[in-house]
């Protein structure tokens, strides 16, 4: 069975380490916050100017001055700090954020990512994505392995306009966990019940399969 979006988030949450400062993108990445393992202390950075993002507010306690980068109403946790957008991207560029999780339309076998523009469609903009992928030390992509037509989104090279080059370190898709290595996509884990053959068939870029590939446990 392919992973649900919740399960993708759950699997990514296992990559968190105690003491990490983490930036979670919009969509599946946001869900990672719901699965932070016990005993692991992480601080969430929101690039609109907050360290120490908490959960959504209780109904009636929404504060219009307190939103995340997805423009959602949120709360803070003890020890939080507000700052301006230059400092926010300053700490991102300086490598102070340990992990960035974001979505993608395409990833290439050398770690290029495309997630901001589809030629012929209205382009809304890259927001902070280009800064994040160019600067973060560790980037995990949360994505579907294929597009709605069944075509692979893990490619020899991206067809869509790039957001960043050689930056993605790991992909957690609905089918697999893969590391980006100098040799290409390296298969690390399979989704429960998904065969190596299916992953091979749905990965257009170079796929490296070494030894037995374990199945994810939930």
């Amino acid at each position, binding site marked *: 069975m392919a992973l649900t979006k919740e399960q993708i988030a759950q699997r990514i949450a296992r990559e968190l380490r105690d003491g990490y400062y983490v930036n979670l993108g919009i969509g599946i990445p946001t869900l990672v916050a719901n699965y932070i393992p016990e005993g692991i202390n992480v601080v969430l950075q929101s690039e609109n100017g907050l360290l120490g993002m908490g959960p959504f507010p209780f*109904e009636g306690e929404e504060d219009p001055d307190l*939103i995340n980068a997805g*423009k959602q109403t949120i709360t803070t946790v003890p020890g939080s700090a507000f700052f301006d957008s230059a400092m926010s991207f300053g700490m991102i560029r300086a490598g102070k954020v340990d992990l960035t999780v974001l979505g993608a339309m395409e990833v290439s076998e050398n770690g290029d990512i495309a997630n901001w523009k589809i030629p012929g469609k209205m382009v809304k903009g890259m927001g*902070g994505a280009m800064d994040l992928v160019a600067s973060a030390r560790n980037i995990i992509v949360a994505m579907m392995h294929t597009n709605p037509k069944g075509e692979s989104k893990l490619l020899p090279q991206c067809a869509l*306009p790039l957001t960043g080059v050689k930056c993605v370190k790991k992909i957690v898709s609905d089918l697999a966990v893969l590391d980006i290595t100098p040799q290409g996509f390296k298969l690390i884990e399979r989704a429960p019940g998904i065969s190596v053959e299916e992953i091979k068939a749905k990965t257009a870029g170079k796929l490296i399969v070494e030894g037995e590939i374990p199945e994810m446990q939930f």
Partner: protein
Amino acid sequence: MNKAVRDAGEAIRDIHDGAVLMLGGFGLCGIPENCIAALVKKGVKALTCISNNAGVDDFGIGLMLRQKQVRKMISSYVGENAEFERQLLSGELEVELIPQGTLATRCLAAGYGMPAIFTPAGVGTEIADGKEIRNFNGKEYLLEYAFDADYAIVKAWKGDTDGNLIYKETARNFNPLMAMAGKITIAEVEELVPAGELDPNMIHTPGIYVHRIFQGKDYQKRIEQRTVNPRPLPLLAG
């Protein structure tokens, strides 16, 4: 050094057709609502607006777009705005998309008197087309220039008559950066106090950067994405 003016109309009195404006805010959070309303009323046209976003159809910069007052938007994300899309596709509106961190840092550069900065954002993408690329310590960076804006229009939480500003929570965002970057900086605040009432240790924007300040009114502070958690059940008393 009293910089207080009566209202938004007086604050924006000399903004002319074709001016380059910076407008603070992230989404609809921390936007200068009063000044935008005054600009709509004044009907000034052919503006270039540097702002992270372009508002929604019926609020924020969207109100100016609806009146066709904007010739060019310089933003990182233009979000959901049907009129914006129509004008863009019809060629009435020009849009320059810039990575958000680059946008912020180009404001900072202007406020700090630095003509240009280096950032890795956009290297290897179409954003780099025609730009100077430079390698430092094995990593490539784009050279990006400081913004040159006629007016910066910002929204703060509290301010004093000397122009010192304090922002609230994530309504800070681009506001302090733009406040530093305008040739003329106009600040609207929720609460204007006499100079000396704000703690000088806790000023986000020193008054030297601010030319006009007024206390705004009738703030709507619209929420774009209202996300909530269910309230936990009250504990039953013994």
